[in-house]
Structures are given as C-alpha cells and as structure tokens.
C-alpha cells in the first residue's frame, strides 16, 4: 500500500475493463479525496461511465482493483459490500427511476432499504423526502409517477433520491445530458448545493458540459482511449498536452 | 358498484383492444396487398428477410416438430398399449400432427421466434426515429420494410410446415421404435397407406394463413410502439399474445371450412 494519505477515500489501482476483446479501461490509477469535486471528461464512449460504475462495484474489474478506506472491493462479501454501497449516492444517466413507484416512494426507497437498526422511522423518512423534494424545487411532484415528468424534472428526482441519505461519495453520470442551458445550470447549481451540505463528501461528475462544470469542479481527470491523459486543476490545463488543450477549447487555455 | 363496473370496463377494454388490433392488422394487410399488384417493393430487402426469417426459425421449427411427433406417439402409446391397436398408431399420429397439433405448435414457435423479433426490430426502429429517417429520405417504409417481411414470413412458414411434418414423422418413428417397440418402418408404412394427403395439405394451408396473420399483426404492433425501451417490450409482449390468439382462431376457421 503506498503511503496512506489520510484524506484519500477511494483509490483506483491499475483498473482494466474489456468489452468484446477491446480494453475500454486500460490501466487507470486515480485517487479521490474527501471534500473534492472531480470532473471526469474525455471523448464520447471512451470509458468514463464504465469507470464510474466500478467505484461502487456495479461492474467487476478485469484487471487491477478499487480500494475504499482500506477495503479492496473485489474481495468483499455481500453484506460488507452493502455497507460500502450505503455510503454512495449515484445519479444515473438514464434517470433509473422506478416507473412502478411514485416520485415520493422513489426518493424514500434508499432509506427504507437501510438495515433495521439504522433505518429512521416512517415519519422521519417522509419528512426528509418532502424536504429534499422542496430542495430540488419539485414539492408538488410527490404523488406523481416518473412517466408524467419532463427530462429535467426526472433528473432532479434522480438527484434527490441519490442524495437523500447525505452520502459521503456522490457520483453524477452525465447529469445535464440533453437538457437546455437553463435547466442544465439548475442541475449544476443543485450539485454545488449538495456538495455544500456535506463539505467533506467526495463528488465525481461525468459530463461534456465543460462550461458549467468549471463553476463546480476543483479538479479535472481526462480519459482518452481508456487511459488517464490529464489529472489536475483548471489552471494546469493551459500547460497540458496538445490533445488536452484542444479538447477543453480556448475558453480554458 | 365500482368493482362490478370495473369488471365490465376491463372486458370492454379487452374487446376494444382486440378490435383495434384486428382492424389495424387488416388495414395493413390491405396496404400490403395493394403494393403487391403491381409488385412495387424492395427486392434486395426481401431476399435479406427471406434469409433472415428462414435461417433463424428453421432449427427451432425442426426441433419442435421432432418433439411434437414424439409427444403424439407417447400420448397415444398409453391408448395403444391398452387396446393393442398398433396399426392405428400411424393413422392417429399422422392425423393429429399434420392437421392439428403440428400447425399450431410450429405456428406458435414461429410466432415466438420471428413474430416477436419482427415487432421488437420495427419497434426499435420507430423509437430511434429510423422509420422517420426513411420517410425523410422519400422512401416508403411500407414498401421497404413491411412488404418484404410479409412475403418472407408467409413463404417461410409454408415451407417450414412441410419441413416440420417430415421432422415430426421422424420424431414419431424414433419414439415408437425406442419406447413402444413398434418398428419404425411399420409406423411409416402405416402412415403412408392411411392416405393423409388431405390433412397434410390442410396443415400447409393453415401455415400460410398463420404466416399472413403473424406478419400483419407483428408489423402492426412494431409500427405502433410509443415510449422508449418499455414501449418496445410491451409491444413485443402484446404482439406475441395477439399472434397466439390469431393462430388458434384461424386454426378453427380453416379446420371448419375444410370440414364443409
């Protein structure tokens, strides 16, 4: 184990993932620290979402490993993995709202699934759900079903569900995909607000919306053809390689 | 009162759905036939569909027919063992396989394999705007997508029925030889001399009508998909159910016409 930097919460070591014979992730080494907001960027379809899904072990690595607070995810048994996953909040690209449940039940679901001794009672859950719905500006949508909502509203419900338990690690997979500029800004404002609620939390955002990410992300990681080609703060982009500078465009150089 | 009215409402809903499907499929059949005389459809796509439909369903139909023949022998084995009428075995098996159980089971497997796939494929093309893209390229989706599939399914199910009958006989012969000790040559000879040509032809005619119904119904559901992945799944499910119902209805109608 390299020198254990106390603040490092997630360490990705030599991570590799193969689809139909091609290495989508080809040796990724990264560290995510408490209190950081990291922007994960890169050309489309080059493994960003795949990397994100490895952190809570929704996908199993073909090579290398993910370590969270000293636990190697690959070796954990089911109930240990459950404890680790409870510390995660995941906003999915395709919304992933349960279309057979109302908006309120969707958001309450993570709390209701907690182990009995940790689970708040029904009244507390309802109160928190209503509060969180108000936070994302959808207080009226409690009893509606996901199919009745617009894209932007579904994204906000997904965000409310992912952050209902104030998780230590929050992952956003393309949160503003296909949304217009104003709705996108609302989503990123919420990401920022969520981070302020739990300043020690680690937040990772996968997106192409560089202009809006700039206001929220402290650090950027760029992945191209399955490898990390840049890992640094916004100011460092100007000195980065030609490929990186071209990707971010003039606004960043 | 609401429970009772709810019950009638659901029956009304079911009848309405049935009529809407029946109407939609018939309208589609009309438009397909109109574009057959004079023949205006994409030949290249038709060849591709013939291969696509035929190759995908030949193995499943053959294996199904093998089991159908075997089950029919098992079924009448109990009867034959008690009465010792082994000579009736050939006639009994041949009759049910060619005229009745063969067409229905092969039709069902074909509807599952090709019908469901057709609805899923067309549904996906509608949901990903590929059908609109065809129209935007001034290409008529009916003549480019639907007619080739109609021709492929009708022809292929008819041919596969004959293939199925052969495999069913093989299945029956094998099982009777292995389980009943009735030599397979006896069964086959007995079957041939029971002059079941009418039943065989009826089975093939049934297969053709099934092919027409399955293609129209599966295309109708494919083209009327709404609402992303869930919509495609639901349309495929409805299509398979409607195909199965149509197979049973047509089986009865063709059987009744033949008996006149």
């Amino acid at each position: 184990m390299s020198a254990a930097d106390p603040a490092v919460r997630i360490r990705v070591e030599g991570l590799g993932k193969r689809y139909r014979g091609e290495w989508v992730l080809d040796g990724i080494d990264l560290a995510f620290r408490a209190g950081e907001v990291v922007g994960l960027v890169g050309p489309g379809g080059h493994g960003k979402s795949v990397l994100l899904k490895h952190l809570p072990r929704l996908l199993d690595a073909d090579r290398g490993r993910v370590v969270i607070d000293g636990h190697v995810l690959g070796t954990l048994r089911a109930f240990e993995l459950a404890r680790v996953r409870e510390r995660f909040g995941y906003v999915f690209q395709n919304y992933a709202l349960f279309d057979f449940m109302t908006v309120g039940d969707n958001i309450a679901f993570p709390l209701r699934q907690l182990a009995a001794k940790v689970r708040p009672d029904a009244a507390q859950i309802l109160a928190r759900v209503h509060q969180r719905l108000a936070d994302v500006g959808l207080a009226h949508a409690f009893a509606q079903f996901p199919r009745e909502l617009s894209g932007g509203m579904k994204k906000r419900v997904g965000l409310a569900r992912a952050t209902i338990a104030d998780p230590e690690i929050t992952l956003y997979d393309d949160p503003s995909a296909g949304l217009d500029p104003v709705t996108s800004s609302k989503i990123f404002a919420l990401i920022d607000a969520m981070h302020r609620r739990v300043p020690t939390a680690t937040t990772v955002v996968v997106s192409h919306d560089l202009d809006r990410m700039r206001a929220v992300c402290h650090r950027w990681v760029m992945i191209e053809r399955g490898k990390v080609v840049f890992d640094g703060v916004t100011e460092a982009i100007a000195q980065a390689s030609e490929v990186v500078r071209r990707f971010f465009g003039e606004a960043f150089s | 009162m609401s429970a009772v009215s709810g019950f009638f409402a659901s029956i009304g809903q079911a009848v309405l759905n049935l009529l809407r499907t029946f109407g939609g499929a018939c309208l589609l059949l009309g438009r397909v036939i109109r574009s057959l005389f004079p023949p205006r459809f994409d030949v290249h796509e038709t060849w591709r569909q013939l291969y696509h439909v035929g190759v995908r369903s030949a193995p499943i139909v053959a294996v199904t027919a093998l089991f159908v023949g075997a089950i029919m022998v098992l079924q009448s084995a109990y009867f034959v063992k008690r009465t010792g009428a082994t000579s009736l075995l050939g006639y009994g098996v041949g009759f049910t396989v060619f005229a009745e159980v063969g067409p229905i089971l092969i039709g069902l497997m074909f509807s599952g394999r090709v019908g469901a796939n057709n609805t899923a494929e067309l549904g996906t093309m509608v949901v990903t705007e590929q059908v609109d893209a065809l129209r935007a390229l001034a290409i008529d989706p009916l003549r480019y997508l639907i007619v080739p599939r109609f021709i492929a399914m009708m022809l292929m199910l008819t041919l596969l029925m004959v293939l199925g009958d052969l495999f069913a006989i093989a299945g029956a012969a094998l099982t009777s030889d292995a389980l009943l000790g009735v030599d397979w040559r006896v069964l086959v000879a007995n079957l041939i001399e029971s002059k079941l040509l009418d039943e065989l032809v009826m089975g093939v005619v049934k297969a053709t009508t099934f092919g027409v119904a399955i293609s129209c119904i599966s295309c109708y559901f494919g083209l009327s998909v709404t609402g992303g992945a869930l919509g495609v799944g639901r349309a495929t499910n409805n299509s398979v159910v409607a195909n199965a119902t149509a197979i049973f209805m047509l089986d009865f109608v063709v059987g009744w016409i033949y008996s006149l």
Partner: protein
Amino acid sequence: MTSAASRVLAGVGRPVVGAWREARGLAGLFLDTFVAVARGRVRGREVVHQMYLVGNKSVPFVAITLAVLGLISVFQVATQIKQVIPDFTMLGAAFMQMMVREFAPTITGLMVATRVGSGIAAEIGSMVVTEQVDALRMSNADPVEYLLVPRTIAAAVMMLMLTIVGIICATIAGMLIARSGFDVSFKTFLNFQLLDAGDLALGGTKALAYGLAIPVIAGRAGLTARGGSAGVGRATTQAVVATSFAVIVLDFVISGVSYVVFGQ
C-alpha cells in the same frame, strides 16, 4: 493449425461454449431463486400483485385457447369414431384423460410462456436497460430477490390455477360440441371413469414444472438484456422461444419418465 481449421473449430466451438455458459448461468439463477425463497426473503404483497398480473390478465387468453382446443379435439376424435364404430360412450372419458394428462397443462404452459414469459423479459429487460436494476443494487435490493422471486412464485401458483381453468373451459366446449354435433348427452360425456390419481399427478407435475421454469428462464433473458431498446427486443424474443421450447422439452421428459417408470 491452419487458420481455416481453427476457424471451423471456432465456428463449432462458439455455440457449444455459448450454450454451456448459458446453461451454467441459468442453473445459477435457478439456485439463487430457490435459495431466496427457502430463506423466506419473499414480499407477500408483491407476490399477490404479480399473481393478479400473471393470473388475472391471462385467464381470458387461456380460457379462449383451451375452449377452442377442446372444441377441435372432440370434433376430430368424434368424426374419427363415427367412421369406425359409432359408439361414443368412452368419448368423454378419453377426452378428460387426454386433457388432464397432456393438453391442458402443455397448451396452458405454452400460452403462459408466450404471454407471461415475454412479459417478464420485457419488464425486467427494460429495467436493466434504463439502469433501474443498478439503482436497486445501489440500495442493497438484490434484483433476483426483489424482481424475480415474486414473479416465480406467482407464475408457479397461477400455472396450476390456469390449468384447472383450462380444463374446465375445454370440457364445457367439448360437451357442447359433443351434444350438438354427435348428440352425446352431457351425462355420458362427463364420465371420469378413466381418470385416476396417476393422471392428476402427471398433469399437476407438468403444470408445476412449467410454472417454475418459465419465469426463471424469462427472468434470465431479461436480466442479461444489453444495449437500449434493441436489447429489450432481443431479450423478449429470446424469452418467448426459450420458455416455449422449455415447455415442450419438459412435456416430453415428464411424459417419457412417467411412461418408463410408472408404465403409464
């Protein structure tokens, strides 16, 4: 080894390896499902809800198909008997026996495979493709327990119920055609003389076997769906074929075993 030879071997090998991996995956899923049921991780309310979806919605569908089948088979058998020896006393008894042993469970099984099999694959498939299954896993709800177990129990129970409904409808239809076409009175038609415990056991075993196989096979097709709406379409098609095929194979196996072991 020349590339042509290796290509041929690969061509042969690939489906075999694929089939083996599929069988192993399916066996694993059966095990997980039954372990979950054995451990009592079952949500009663959801099972009842699924019973409504599986059973209630399929009743008209099974009733119509079995009635039509009953009509056809009595009509066929009666016309045959009329040509040989016009004695219809055993018509009803033979019909009842064939219906209980063979047609009711198998045809109902095929209908449930078509309707319920594709339904389960479509539903679970679209949940996988829209990442709802990943969302379940993030909240420690195991997809097999949460989605597949209720559907499996509901399908197994409903399969038995629907077979009984099927037998009733087929018998009623058979009775009517027997009387109107061949003036066989209801009383003579409804004779259960030939029916014994063995027939009921055989029919029941088949229905239960189909009821357990269909949801798990369809569930596997759903859980392995990949790639947007095209993936859901493929999963649904695969489920219909796999479940229908399983019904036919199980019918053959159970009939064969019962014939060899019990001689009937």
